[in-house]
């Protein structure tokens, strides 16, 4: 008995050591591919670096002065906010609506769910190719469809002019990402106890009143998480916008992620690009802290 009492703390210590040993590979890889590049980005933002030769000189906070005084960063920030707000609200409205429909008794419900979920898992490249073909001004199905219904009488230039280009990316973004909202809301809908609805029915609440008074309050916590997560992901979206419009016409759909890429690999200003990326990260940090604190509270 006494021997066992002696070994218990030793065992605990041994376990702790094993735990550290098991996490060590993760820490090493993390430091190499994430922590080091993150610190390097901040370090690089103090230099002026010409991308093709990678030669550079120390310029201190000049890049950050550029960021504050030039229009590029601020107009891109505005574009990013417009895009994030537009596509996110559409995702939430469509997502909740479709989730409510798919929650009902529907013929071939699982097939309908698969069809709705598919775009989320599709490669952005595929989504963009398909939509660029749909948006095609001469032979695109969208213009012809809209003309056949009679909504427009001339083919619309979808991606080459404003505000159509912004509407276009917001639309494709919503189509690609609203299934995320559908899955999350559907999962939550299934856990709402049936007796809440019955109680509301007895109190004489119609379907619309039941949605506002029972469903929506029950969805509140999951919607908060969805909105935070999707806001962060939409804010940093690169592929979809870059491939659809490339930031154009001119810079009207150039979000911050595109601006960083443009500075680094088209204008060859790697140091300034690093400064912009740090600026972008600082803006995102606000959302990230809110999300991390929120999920910490939930956990």
């Amino acid at each position: 008995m006494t021997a066992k009492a002696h070994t218990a703390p030793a065992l605990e210590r041994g376990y702790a050591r094993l735990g550290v040993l098991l996490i060590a590979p993760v820490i090493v890889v993390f430091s190499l591919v994430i922590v080091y590049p993150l610190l390097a980005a901040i370090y690089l933002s103090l230099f002026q670096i010409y991308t093709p030769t990678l030669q550079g000189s120390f310029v201190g906070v000049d890049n950050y002065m550029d960021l504050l005084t030039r229009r590029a960063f601020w107009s891109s920030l505005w574009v990013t906010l417009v895009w994030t707000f537009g596509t996110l609200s559409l995702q939430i409205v469509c997502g909740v609506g479709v989730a409510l429909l798919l929650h009902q008794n529907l013929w071939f419900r699982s097939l309908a769910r698969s069809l709705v979920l598919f775009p989320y898992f599709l490669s952005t490249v595929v989504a963009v190719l398909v939509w660029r073909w749909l948006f095609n001004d001469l032979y695109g199905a969208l213009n012809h469809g809209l003309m056949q219904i009679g909504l427009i009488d001339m083919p619309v230039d979808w991606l080459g002019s404003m505000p159509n280009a912004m509407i276009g990316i917001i639309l494709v973004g919503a189509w690609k990402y609203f299934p995320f909202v559908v899955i999350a809301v559907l999962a939550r809908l299934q856990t709402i106890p049936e007796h809440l609805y019955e109680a509301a029915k007895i109190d004489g609440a119609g379907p619309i009143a039941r949605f506002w008074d029972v469903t929506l309050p029950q969805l509140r916590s999951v919607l908060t998480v969805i909105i935070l997560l999707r806001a962060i992901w939409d804010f940093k979206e690169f592929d979809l916008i870059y491939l659809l419009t490339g930031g154009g016409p001119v810079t009207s759909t150039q979000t911050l992620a595109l601006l960083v890429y443009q500075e680094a690999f088209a204008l060859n200003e790697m140091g300034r690009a690093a400064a912009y990326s740090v600026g972008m990260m600082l803006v995102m940090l606000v959302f990230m802290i809110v999300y991390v604190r929120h999920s910490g509270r939930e956990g």
Partner: protein
Amino acid sequence: MKLLRTVAFNLFTWSLVLLIAFPLIWMVLTSLKPQTELFRIPPTWLPQSVTFEHYWRLLTETPFLIYFRNSVVLATATTLFVVTLGTVGAYSLVRFRYRGRETLALLVLFTYLLPSVVLIIPLYLAMVWLGLSNTLMSLVLAHTTFALPYALWLLRSFMEGVPEDLESAALVDGATRMGAFKDIILPQLLPGIISTALFTFILSWNEYLYALVLVNTDSVRPLTTGVMSMLISAFNIEWSLLMAASVMMSVPLIVVFAFLQSYLTRGFGAGGVKG
């Protein structure tokens, strides 16, 4: 009356579902149309003659198969690397007590939300310096930056769902921690591992930005940048060929959807939303 309501509801919902799925249906239809039929005004909604020539040309006349092979190697390597590290790491984060554990979990969550464009400049410089640029290895390392936090976060939630008493019982019976991990935890965690592996594979399969910056020769290009380069390099955009490429590129996804969909929805519950 009730029947009428049911029929109306089903018709309405299904037309909405088909509207959402229309771009995908259109992709398949376009890939089956002969090139000449594409440029009809007004367009034919259903193909008048069905042809597989675009698929044939894709496989024989373009580097599509090379891109496909690269994507398979890249996504498989990333998944194996990340899921192995992640499973062992998640075991440590959930079932062991040591200092810094909580901070580490928080750090994982932060990196999970980090934008790729912040890391891409230093990673590009590092790959050039290491002589790894234009290799699949550089892409595996780059994909680790988003796949590892993601897998770790998912696996951590799955690990929390594995009951602790079975492991304790095995330990009382004289098993070592690693023995219990192998015999008790791993079998119970398997569905979670499968679902994490699927998500990681899809993430890596679909990734575009790192492939754009780190790789620029056809022999190592994955599908995402490869297929896009077919669009850009073509003088005359061959939409039916591109749609055939899009369909082929989505094949692994269709397979996952047809046979393993429950694993995808499970992964959602664990990591995507609960946070």
